[in-house]
């Protein structure tokens, strides 16, 4: 497809442990179109961060292996790239915002010098003069709605609040033009009101710069606010994908349904019983559907066979035998 920016095909990621391989990502397919905001929703330990770290190839190669699959970024496989090519992609095309702004910033350098480093080593702006670089940094800080950018540039990360630090991280991710932004739960460590501000800012910036966004989150509410299309992930598999409106109107996979019932609603009415059980062991996962042991509508076939992904309508796919 012309319009596809990132296309992950049948990706598998395994971690080496003393008991054997933990098959954390188990053949997922995911694509992102140009200018599209995609949400990747799943509970902790479902492999969503692992997937995205594989895209940037920042996993520890001593423990993580990719036995199968390809990650096509503009039709070039990231997994087969040489180091220099990979660095070009990292510098020019894809950036990532992490969950912990405190850990993402170096505590011994000022915010300004950290932003300046990115500008200095970027492809686009490496020939800028010092004052041009500085004004670019100031502009970036202004873009993330921080008042008084000059003071912020001269302060150290510990002098800033959590929300401020996350804004700086966003600024650093967007200082050079990028095509894809991967946001790994950018609001989870922050308070509700600040989280709301960060999400709104992120959405506005991504739309303004016509970038693509992959929003990793565990919260369906956040995904609903920020994305056009949502992938629901469970235990290393994509179980359902649909346009945001369609997904919330017509959720199909038993896991998606269960997840939605668990979310406490603002209109009250109590909370459902939750989904029985826990995420499976990745070293010896269930042979069939990985959700089978917890599934309320499990059938005989689910135990033995992996459910293939079927299209129920255009843009709405689900991996479940119920819809086969």
């Amino acid at each position, binding site marked *: 497809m012309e319009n596809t920016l990132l296309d992950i095909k049948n990706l598998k990621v395994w971690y080496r442990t*003393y008991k054997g391989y933990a098959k954390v990502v188990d053949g997922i397919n995911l694509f992102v179109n140009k200018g599209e905001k995609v949400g990747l929703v799943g509970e902790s330990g479902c492999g969503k961060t692992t997937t995205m770290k594989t895209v940037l190839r920042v996993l520890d190669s001593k423990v993580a292996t990719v036995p199968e699959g390809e990650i096509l970024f503009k039709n070039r496989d990231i997994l087969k790239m040489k180091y220099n090519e990979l660095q070009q992609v990292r510098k020019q095309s894809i950036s990532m915002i992490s969950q912990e702004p405190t850990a993402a910033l170096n505590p011994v350098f000022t915010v300004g010098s950290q932003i300046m480093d990115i500008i200095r080593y970027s492809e686009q702006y490496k020939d800028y003069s010092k004052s041009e670089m500085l004004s670019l940094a100031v502009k970036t800080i202004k873009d993330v709605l921080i008042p008084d950018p000059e003071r912020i540039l001269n302060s150290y990360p510990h002098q800033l609040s959590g929300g401020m630090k996350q804004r700086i991280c966003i600024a650093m991710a967007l200082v050079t033009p990028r095509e894809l932004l991967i946001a790994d739960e950018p609001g989870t460590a922050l308070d509700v009101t600040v989280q709301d501000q960060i999400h709104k800012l992120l959405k506005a910036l991504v739309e303004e710069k016509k970038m693509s966004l992959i929003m990793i989150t565990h919260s369906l509410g956040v995904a609903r606010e920020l994305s056009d299309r949502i992938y629901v992930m469970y235990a290393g598999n994509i179980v359902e994908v649909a346009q945001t409106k369609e997904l919330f109107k017509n959720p199909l996979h038993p896991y998606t349904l269960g997840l939605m019932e668990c979310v406490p609603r603002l209109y009250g009415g109590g909370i459902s019983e939750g989904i*029985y*059980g826990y995420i499976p062991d990745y070293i010896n996962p269930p042979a069939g559907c990985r959700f*089978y*042991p917890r*599934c309320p509508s*499990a059938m005989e076939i689910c135990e033995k066979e992996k459910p293939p992904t079927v299209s129920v309508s255009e843009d709405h796919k689900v991996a479940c035998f119920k819809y086969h």
Partner: protein
Amino acid sequence: MKNNISANENTADIKKKSFLSDNTREKLRIYWYKFSRNKFSILGLCIVLISIFLAVFAPVIAPYPQHVKEFVDYDKAGLPPCASYIFGTDVFGRDIFTRVIFSFRGALLMSVIVLAIAVPVGVLLGLIAGYYSGTWIDVIIMRITDVFLALPPMILALAIAAVLKPNLTSSMIAVTVMWWPWYTRLVYGMATSLSKEYFVKNAELIGASKPYILFHEILPNCLSPIFTKMALDVGWVILIGAALSFVGLGEQPPTPAFGQMISDGARYMPDLWWMTIFPALAIAFIILGFNFFGDGIRDMLDRGR
């Protein structure tokens, strides 16, 4: 399907006993996996086992056990390493190999006794000071510890050993006195942070007694660094013991000790080099072994990996 799971749990219930031993076996397997990942750890373990074996069975293994007592045979004095005396003989005609093996005995005995006294004392003081950190109890214990840490250890040991009669006992007392503060420091740091953990707070809020909190809640969480340090310290105690005996403050002749043998031999260097080299190599061997072993223990007890 839900019934399926609870049925599994029931069988687990019935097979509780075997389940438990499975659990222990599993734990041992993880420990061995972590320990054996570094090949040097295994080398260290071998050296430690050999040292202990030599120390325990010294009278059986040594070819000339009578050479560690009053013994003179000038006919065989100063022989270089040969088939019947593989490490050679000293100026009194005593077999160096026998004396090295018996030195292992003294050295290991010293380490064990020193650590057996220094560790409990140091750990107890560290636990109390750490749990009451910020109060006068903490101040008193830790300032006394600081005083001991501030004195240069060798000089302190020399002073103590010199005041007392120069023999193995007094050198052990000297080393013990300089050794416990390190354990106090180590445990103090851990106990301070552990006493802020919620499980300790919870025990307090439930109303558990102070000794219970100290010994059942905090102490088990400090054990792995303590064991690691102990494994490493065996070697260092041997080294300090050798240094003391080198200057004549350890075991007295004719009973052999590493330091004393080296200092005796040093007078005949380089002609009778085997008198010095073999005891020195033995010290290097044992310290290296315990260091590798200690590193292995650290890897093994590390929860992170």
